[in-house]
């Protein structure tokens, strides 16, 4: 006996905006958890080394940062922290924008602002980490005025 044919459900005004078939949200979800785990290590390590080791927070000055960035290890550490925190944080804010914006235009504007802020901060931060020069010299090879005192030594 053939099963009775069921009519298709009536169409309703409640339309879900259909998505393109992609794994985008899955990778985004996965990234939040992986980057979160790595960030936990990076951030706690960062806080420990900056605030607890040696003189602790009292030893934190221009020279301390200069010293850290003289080492490729801390350059890579800080670079990873910068990129992961910025992408993780921005992706989190993207989620929140998706949640709370009602109109497509508002959504677009906020996401554009978010993307600009992300790119700006990541590019600027990356430049600083790799081009940081604690003892800047002029074309004549002499220290520029205003360079920290430890450069003279």
């Amino acid at each position, binding site marked *: 006996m053939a099963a009775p044919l069921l009519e298709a*459900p009536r169409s*309703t005004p*409640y339309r*879900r*905006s*259909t*998505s393109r*078939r992609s*794994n*985008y*949200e*899955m990778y*985004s*979800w*996965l990234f939040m958890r992986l980057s979160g785990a790595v960030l936990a290590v990076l951030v706690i390590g960062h806080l420990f080394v900056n605030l607890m080791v040696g003189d602790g927070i009292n030893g934190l000055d221009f020279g301390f940062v200069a010293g850290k960035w003289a080492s490729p290890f801390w350059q890579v550490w800080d670079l990873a922290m910068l990129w992961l925190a910025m992408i993780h944080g921005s992706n989190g804010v993207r989620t929140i924008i998706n*949640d*709370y914006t*009602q109109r497509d235009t508002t959504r677009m504007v906020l996401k554009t602002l978010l993307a600009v802020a992300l790119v700006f901060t990541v590019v600027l931060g990356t430049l600083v980490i790799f081009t940081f020069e604690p003892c800047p010299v002029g074309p004549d090879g002499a220290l520029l005025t205003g360079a920290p005192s430890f450069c003279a030594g």
Partner: protein
Amino acid sequence: MSSTAREKSAAKRNGEHVDENGHAHGKAGEEASSENGELGAIPSFDVVMRIRRYNAEDAEDGTPVEARWEDFTVTLHGTDRVLDALHKIKWEQDGSLSFRRSCAHGVCGSDAMRINGVNRLACKVLVKDINPDKPITVEPIKGLPVEKDLVVDMEPFFQSYREVMPFLITSGHQPTRERKQSQEERERFDDTTKCILCAACTSSCPVFWTDGQYFGPAAIVNAHRFIFDSRDEGADVRLEVLNDREGVWRCRTTFNCSEACPRGIQVTKAIHEVKRALLTRTV
């Protein structure tokens, strides 16, 4: 019946007394019995039901349509549930009060509502268990359009339900005998077969509240029921539906759904199992 940690936490939130066996007891019923000294009389107590009213027709006489709170005082017994209180109001005080109910015994899923701020079935909550010393608030479930008083439009909820294809999908010839399944195979989705589609979970989810686009826990629970059924062959299609932008990845693991479910389904766990099936592409 042993009480779960979840029941206990709900009891605590509602200001109930929990005895050493972990069972919750309201106080009002007991007090009433000692005051009402008459032998054989059934003790009763008065309680204020604070109900969220909304009627679109109010607009016809020019008054703006706005939901408002209305207090009703009803005299109840220790055996009365929130649904009985609503009946008393509707039958004895204000016949215009609108709400859904059918079975009145926790199986049809008609009367999910927000009682003292949490989603419950009105027919499963004893008034004496939710601190009747204070007004008891009753609101429609959140996130679905209110039609009248406690009645909401369930269509968006059922649309999501239909989209996960909640029916057995098979290929090939009809077998001449039943489709066999081992106890272990059944165990994998047993929990999610218990759903009565009351929408308590979906309408307790903050992600669903934001824009109502999220499929919601109930649709995922009912997809889970078939995805992990060894007799079903439609898992891939359903997983693809829930891989959507509005699918399982919008879940933020707040556990509101598991807390709300009147059938005690571990909703968040079911959602997680669907996420894992998507990540590993294995069921």
